[in-house]
């Protein structure tokens, strides 16, 4: 069986395991899903009536079976907190998160690759020390703190950029216009800082390592121009950088919860945050499942791309 087919087939058991894991996780955590549906004032007969209506009175294995059956048909159930379709909620939020993630990735990965390459080429120089300091600083700064700081400076003090939301209307109206783009700037910058630092550090280390290889000396000795040598270096750095960026992209999609909360950005992070505090199990399960599948698929794409760039991986 070819490497590609094998790698694709692996996705099925991984996805099922992820599904079981996230179902168990939310059911094992403390809290009663009924708390999201009925108010604490509700008498016990009302609680039981709603329990029946939502299927929370069924045994857990049966609930899991029904959930998986519906999930494969694209139906993730109804939110316990607001009764809306979880699939609709998750996919509408995912669209917003992807928008934010792509913007943050563009900023973070571009600057990370640039700074990392510069620092790697001029290892030990003042520039290297500056870039390394910046990278360490950026991976150490808490997201939410930086977000609040940017809001204070650029929204409250200077009144240049909005502090919250995805646009003047709703995220469904999003358009590539300044009125909407200005809402994207602060959260995207905040979210880009950590991946920028990580990519910078990775690229710097790999560039330095590749430059220390004998083949680079050989290329130079053969009289290759600096730019041609640089292209060879980039080709050797690419698989590692790609792997890191792929992982970071996954983390950005799943890990923007704090940034989305600070900026009231209507993405999956804010959805998860609200679902956790409302004990909205169907939304929690659905969001985690969709994000996990996204992460699995992203890893698959990165693996396949890596194998394409570096044939040794296929043999391994």
């Amino acid at each position, binding site marked *: 069986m070819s490497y590609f087919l094998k790698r694709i087939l692996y996705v099925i058991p991984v996805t099922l395991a992820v599904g079981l894991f996230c179902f168990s996780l939310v059911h094992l955590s*403390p*809290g*009663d899903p009924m*708390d999201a*549906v*009925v*108010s*604490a*004032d*509700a*008498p*016990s007969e*009302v*609680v039981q*009536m*709603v329990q029946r*209506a*939502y299927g929370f009175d069924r045994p857990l294995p049966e609930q899991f079976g029904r959930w998986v059956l519906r999930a494969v048909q694209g139906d993730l159930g109804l939110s316990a*907190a*607001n*009764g*809306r*379709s979880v699939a609709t*909620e998750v996919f*509408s*939020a995912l669209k917003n998160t992807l928008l934010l993630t792509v913007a943050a990735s563009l900023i973070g990965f571009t600057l990370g690759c640039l700074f990392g390459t510069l620092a790697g080429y001029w290892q030990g120089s003042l520039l290297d020390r500056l870039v390394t300091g910046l990278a360490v600083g950026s991976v150490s700064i808490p997201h939410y703190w930086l977000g*609040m700081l940017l*809001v*204070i400076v650029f*929204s*409250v003090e200077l*009144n240049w950029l*909005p*502090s*919250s*939301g*995805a646009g003047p*209307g*709703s*995220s*469904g109206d999003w358009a590539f216009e300044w009125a909407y783009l200005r809402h994207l700037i602060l959260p995207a910058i905040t979210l880009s800082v950590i991946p920028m630092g990580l990519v910078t550090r990775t690229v710097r280390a790999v560039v330095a390592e590749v430059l220390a290889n004998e083949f680079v000396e050989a290329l130079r000795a053969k009289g290759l121009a600096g730019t041609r040598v640089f292209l060879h270096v980039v080709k050797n750095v690419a698989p590692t950088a790609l792997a890191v960026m792929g992982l970071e992209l996954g983390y950005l999609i799943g890990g923007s919860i704090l940034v989305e*909360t*600070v*900026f*009231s950005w*209507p993405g999956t992070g*804010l*959805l998860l*945050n*609200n679902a956790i*505090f*409302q*004990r909205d199990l169907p939304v929690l399960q659905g969001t985690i499942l969709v994000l996990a599948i996204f992460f699995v698929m992203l890893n698959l794409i990165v693996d396949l791309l890596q194998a394409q760039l570096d044939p040794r991986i296929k043999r391994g």
Partner: protein
Amino acid sequence: MVYKNATQTWRRTGKAVALSIGLAALVVPAIAKAEQTLRIAMTASDIPLTTGQPDSGFEGYRFLGYTIYDALINWDLSSADEVSGLTPGLAESWEVDEENPREWTFVLREDVTFHDGSEWNADAAIWNLDKIYDEDSPQFDARQAGNVRGRIPTMDQYEKVDDHTILFTTSEPDAWFPYQLTFLLFSSPAQWEALDGDWDEFARQPSGTGPFKLTRLVPRERAELVPNADYWDEQRIPQVDRVVLIPMPESSSRTSALLSDQVDWIETPAADAIPRMESQGMTITSNPYPHTWPYQFSMLEGSPWRDINVRKAANLAVDREGLQALLGGMMAPAVGTVTPDHPWFGEPEFEIRYDPEEALRLLEESGYGPDNPVQARALISTSGSGQMQPLAMNEYIQQSLAEVGIELEFEVLDWESLFPNWRRGADHQTSRGAHSTNITFAWLDPFNGFYRFMHSSLAPPNGFNWGYVDDPEYDRLLDEARVTFDQEAQDAILAEFHAKMVDDAAWLWVAHDVGPRAMHPRVKGFVQSQNWFQDLTPVYIEE
């Protein structure tokens, strides 16, 4: 011929110009009057349910309940000077049968229409009651039923008498029934049928009889309301052209949104941000309302609060004025469940004040002292609806009590865990052996203010008598008040009950919230009533 055509052309041109000028005369003033939009940042994390019976607690009722819908009996929110009373809503009048005090006759208001134009009448009322109480009716909605049934504990039967009269029968005589009906809101049967009986679709296109109509709903992002120009109460036709409601649970986000002019009004600003907002010209409004921030004690074996001296000492140990200063003035000291100017306060002999010496003496009398402090455990939350600033406030109380020899240990839960524990009781495993719980509540009516906490029949799982209070005198007074239909006589009984509660130091009373709101100075006309609910209809924008 040419001349004739030219004449016709000139005439046509002249008419066109005249028409244009006429149209412009009509249109320009309309354009010149910019649309008045009021943007409000709510503390809720989502848009509350819009089908009729809102979720998200009283904030849901405030913004998406009483705006789109009416109850049979509404709250009169027109005054800032006194605690809000009841006023006729979709019912013009109501009365209890003197022979059979379980029966209530409601005469419905005529000439009221839903937003979709359909008629409000007894059939619409019964249809809505079936929506909540009849599980076999096609319009039954478990979610709406779950949100409201617990608020009307004595509802038993209902029937249509004629097109504009309905009859309710309660499970027992209940003088507080009218208060409970303020929570029952009425949706349009015609709209539900037009939407093929789909409540999800109805949530997006709701139709009630209220002063506002919902025109746009983007889940988790915004709800937009416009005035209902045909509202039956002409005094309450909204002044603004549009209200935009935005969920924003983080107080720092709400503050930033107001200061950066993204919204005009925020609910519950953080106390430490208020000076900053004031310095930028924002208006801070506040007014005490029926809200109490207490410690509800456990009376179970092993609880130190069973000793009245300990309870009194705790009430004397807390410097409420100091706490008020800590909160930037955004609280009123509580010396009982209700405020001293309320008819239910009564004339207690025990005066709740800051008197640590007396507290020490009382504790000494009960055998406590520096070498033998009172050991107590309290359930508290990190946040929550109406909880104000629970961590800072509880730490302050912990320190105050420690100074007189009451060592308080906290079991900190998130709000979503603490709130359901309320009905589970002090002996439930989720209470973790705590001797008190710290949950704020509304005392809009005697049932929700007193009965559910203090009547022995409402010990868990039946109600919120978390600490298993079992005092025949409390039961007697509450039972008597519940069947006393004369308001003054009922108030007198409740005053006696409340005075006894204070004399018993039944709880540790700390604060009443004052409902702080911050708004841009261009927002005018808002009257902050002494209520959890507020009226948006008189608000306007002055540029």
